[in-house]
């Protein structure tokens, strides 16, 4: 069976600057995969290439078929992207944000809403609150909830822990773990917090300068000498 997501020799550029120099990675059905690397390694660009926000060459396949290169159509393929900076609609209410998350799946709205609120109960209580007034952690949770409203097969997450307090981050990753284990949601997480990322994933890739430098089971990478020195701090 074809993997859920496959990237083969993907190059991407911002104008004259090439950011990805041939990235190859896969995510299987229901897998939790992490992408690590320092600043400028190309982690965010990889996600943006997948969802079509940046022009990319090379093969990107979803379930064996070529993935469309426009964000609107990628969303239709069951891939939900929670970008860097969360990408919520700050001037709209919590409820409106969630309604937008369900844009493609009108009929399942109520069912999805209940499922999502089961993971984030406070969303229903604060449905009329303007999203921009939520705290950082709440905004991140709203962003994830919004992505879940479309019942995706694969969740792309860009630096979910950025700017959040450790206790909030732990809660978010706990929920992600639940989603992955109990509902079989595949997750591709880009994270600078390597320790957390490796603990929450089964496989990981380490990007350096736009290429995959290392890959393997997360447990192995966590023990890897160079990874420990560069990203885990010991």
């Amino acid at each position, binding site marked *: 069976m074809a993997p859920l997501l496959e990237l083969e020799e993907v190059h991407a550029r911002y104008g004259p600057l090439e950011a990805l120099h041939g990235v190859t990675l896969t995510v299987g059905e229901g897998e939790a995969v992490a992408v690590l690397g320092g600043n400028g390694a190309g982690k965010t660009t990889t996600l943006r290439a997948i969802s079509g926000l940046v022009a990319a060459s090379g093969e990107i396949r979803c379930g064996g078929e070529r993935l469309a290169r*426009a964000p609107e159509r990628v*969303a239709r393929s069951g891939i939900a992207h929670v970008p860097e900076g969360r990408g919520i*609609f*700050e001037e709209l209410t919590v409820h409106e944000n969630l309604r*937008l*998350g369900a844009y493609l799946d009108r009929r399942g709205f109520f069912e999805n809403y209940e499922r999502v609120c089961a993971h984030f109960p406070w969303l229903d209580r604060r449905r009329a609150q303007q999203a921009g007034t939520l705290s950082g952690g709440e905004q991140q949770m709203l962003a994830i909830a919004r992505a879940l409203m479309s019942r995706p097969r694969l969740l792309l997450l860009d630096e979910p822990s950025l700017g959040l307090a450790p206790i909030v981050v732990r809660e978010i990753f706990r929920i992600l773990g639940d989603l992955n284990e109990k509902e079989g949601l595949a997750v591709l997480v880009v994270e600078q917090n390597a320790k957390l990322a490796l603990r929450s994933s089964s496989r990981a890739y380490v990007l350096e300068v736009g290429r995959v430098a290392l890959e393997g089971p997360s447990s192995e990478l966590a023990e890897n000498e160079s990874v420990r020195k560069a990203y885990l701090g010991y």
Partner: protein
Amino acid sequence: MSEFLQQVVAGLASGSIYALLALGIVIIYRSTGVVNFAQGEMATFTTFVAWTLVDHGVGYWGAFGLTLVIAFVGGIALERIVVRPVEGRPPINGVILTIGLFILLGGLSNWIWKAEVRSFPPSRPFPTSAWDLGGVAVSEQDAGILAVTLVLMTLLWLLFRYTKLGLALRASALNPVASRLVGIRVGWMLGLGWGLAAAIGAVAGLFTAAASPPLDPNMMRPVLIYAFAAAVIGGLESPVGAVVGGLVIGVVLNLISTYDTHLHLDLDRVRLPIALALILIVLLARPTGLFGRQVLRRV
């Protein structure tokens, strides 16, 4: 007192026209970030189209409806073809582009329809009689304009607040990237914004022609300024502000004209400078308009 109320009502009617045009300007600005200097000329052009339809035997209200559709489609086409390329660029590009459009449409109108004097609509769509509401004489035309405007505004409000399409339109204007990630075809939404604005403008043009015959190619020039004033006073991003601004300007200008005879300042001649002064006063107090969002910038 009844004279005063009468003038207020008349002012509200002309203000409705400014409000409609201003609303179109705000919708376009919110969705595509462009200030449409051609909004008035678009309205004039579509009004001439309506005249042509009536001239060929279509009934007034049929032509009215058909013109709205034509304007809607035209607006979408304009956005997709001409405006799309400048949407990400610095504001000066949009300014020059829409000024070019302003001149182009003016020239086209002149060429196609010449500058002959025409009366439009040929027979008044609203009866010329006036109602007496508690001692205040309200012309049926003014009442008609107010009523139609009110209905339109309500429909738009319902669209934006309660429908999925309206939500998608708002989202596309607020955060195009996030909108695309959610599956919205932002390009089409932006086109729709222009289509709506063009249709609303068409209504403004048709009302202007009805309120001040004959049909004259320059009829929307001053209206555009009052509409800009309304949009700016209300805050370029606030539809509510644009409507309130338009109504206020209509009433204020009308009252000034009426009471100027007592003041002997000949203010009727300087309506445009007064509108400008109003803009300046409001913007000095609130640089983003009365209802505008204060933009906080992260340093």
